[in-house]
């Protein structure tokens, strides 16, 4: 957890800066709006954390979010009675995509970067093949309430964070870190390495399903809803001090990374650095943050053999 202290300091600093620039942020409504905006990325980061700490990548979550939203809109098509069955289906889709990613990566020994890159192409191709190129249909009010009502979003976020922390404290969590740290040693000590990794991918798929449900209500139905979310999620996790290549880092820090990223966007917006230079500032800060972490811990490897 010591590694994670800088990210909490940075986050606190950013939150203070936002509050100074916009006092509305300190009111319950203002802070709730912020939490609602952070929730999808924070949930994705939590899911991505499990995959990264086990030594893998999941690049498919962005497309998966798009798939979830587009599928929901087409199947619900404004019909309230479809809300709950479709919600259940979305969760199943998320778990299933994670299962396939995990099995291909572990059993067929395809590097997860390639597995999930392929999944990214397949998922977005398949869903638009099905809908004919553009999202169709509409979400029901019952579906949109999760992403729209701040209370729901915060509640879901809380449940996700608690579950993630409990999972990492359980045997499963310790196994996963061991697998990411030294696969061979874990295997020799009797850990079922493949099963741990498959579960990690399924958690990531599940988190993409939940994030998709929130984003569908929050941002609406579009073909771009999940665009580049995979990179944002990975960035958030790495900002939290979690090492690419696995074996090190804390899940709460990864979620704090997502908060930091979103707080950074908010602050840049408040100071009028929106759109244009926002990306440049973001890029510099990400490199600087990881460099600062890396310099203190020279063990960070250039090219983890698991990539």
């Amino acid at each position: 957890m010591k590694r994670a202290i800088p990210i909490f300091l940075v986050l606190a600093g950013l939150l203070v800066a936002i509050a100074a620039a916009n006092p509305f942020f300190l009111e319950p409504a203002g802070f709730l709006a912020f939490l609602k905006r952070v929730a999808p990325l924070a949930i994705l980061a939590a899911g991505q954390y499990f995959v990264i700490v086990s030594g893998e990548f999941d690049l498919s979550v962005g497309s998966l979010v798009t798939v979830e939203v587009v599928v929901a809109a087409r199947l619900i098509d404004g019909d309230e009675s479809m809300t709950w069955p479709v919600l259940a289906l979305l969760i199943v889709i998320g778990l299933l995509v994670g299962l396939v990613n995990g099995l291909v990566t572990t059993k067929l020994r395809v590097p997860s970067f390639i597995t999930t890159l392929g999944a990214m192409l397949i998922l977005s191709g398949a869903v638009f093949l099905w809908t004919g190129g553009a999202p169709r249909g509409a979400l029901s009010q019952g579906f949109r309430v999760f992403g729209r009502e701040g209370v729901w979003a915060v509640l879901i976020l809380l449940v996700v964070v608690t579950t993630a922390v409990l999972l990492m404290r359980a045997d499963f969590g310790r196994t996963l870190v061991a697998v990411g740290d030294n696969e061979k040693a874990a295997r020799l000590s009797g850990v079922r390495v493949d099963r741990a990794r498959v579960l990690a991918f399924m958690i990531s798929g599940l988190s993409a399903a939940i994030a998709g449900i929130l984003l569908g209500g929050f941002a609406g139905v579009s073909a771009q809803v999940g665009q580049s979310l995979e990179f944002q999620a990975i960035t958030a996790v790495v900002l939290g001090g979690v090492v690419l290549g696995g074996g090190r880092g804390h899940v709460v820090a990864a979620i704090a990374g997502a908060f930091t990223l979103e707080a950074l966007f908010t602050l840049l917006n408040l100071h009028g650095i929106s759109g244009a230079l926002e990306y440049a500032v973001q890029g510099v800060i990400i490199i600087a943050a990881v460099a600062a972490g890396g310099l203190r811990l020279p063990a960070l490897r250039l090219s983890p053999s698991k990539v």
Partner: protein
Amino acid sequence: MIALVANPTRAVYAALVATLAIGWVLVAFDGGTFTLNDMVGIQQRSAALGIVAVGQTLAILAGSLDLSVAYLISLVSLVAAETMAGQPSNILTAVVAALGVSALVGLVNGIVITKLKVHAFIATLGVALVIRGVLDHLYDGPAGRVPVEFQQLGYARIGPIPVAALLWAAVAVAVWFLLRRTRLGNRIYAVGGDVEVARLSGVRTDRVVIAAHVLCSLCAGVAGLLLASRLGAGAPTVGTDGGYDLESIAAVVLGGTALAGGRGGVAGTVGGVLLLAVLDSVFNQLEVNSFFKDVVRGVVIVVAVAVYARRTGRRAS
């Protein structure tokens, strides 16, 4: 070791020939023909991706990877087109400026990765974001003008062969020579294979990684020049629209180069790019839905790598 490297390369060319044959039959059944013109078209379309992928091969072989190439291509196309401003006399200056910018970006990538010890994934993603911010800040749409003389690079043919394809071939041969016949090439394989062993053997590993990144970015720069000559102008979205970052990595891996570094080569990458291009043009001939193409492309990449993994696994055990 050599047999191990040669195997995936042979596999990808076998797949290429098979795809050509099956594609030809399918197209014939569909009532169309697969002509020399289509073959030339394949080379034309794949040249830009091919050049980027050859550069990406160097980065990946060195145990790194480069996610910044797509935005760099856009940046280079703008630098070149703005410097040329429609004047043939400015071509040389523009090419030098474009390649200078590319080399600089590669240098930054390499230094951030080696000296600041930032993982290549994050380092090049960060540099990509910085370039994106600069592009979004300065440009709303296409800018600059490329003189007709320079547009020859994109469209002219020598006999039946497009100049662009020759340029790709030249880049590929140069990098092949670098990897197989020079000290730097050897060291790139050594560093990608095991960076600690390379360091202990007296290789200055940081320099090798930086050199690989500079060369990778230079290749992206050449691709940017090629695309600028095709468009007749620079465009802030030309690199990302082509998806050159992930697509080039996919092509390299399809060509049998290990993502972990140290194994593979340029010949495989060329095969991988051609395979993607042939698939693309067969689907075009059959007028297949473009989303279906993405699905097939994803399946092909994953299946290919799964096949390579089986082969290497059997040999290792």
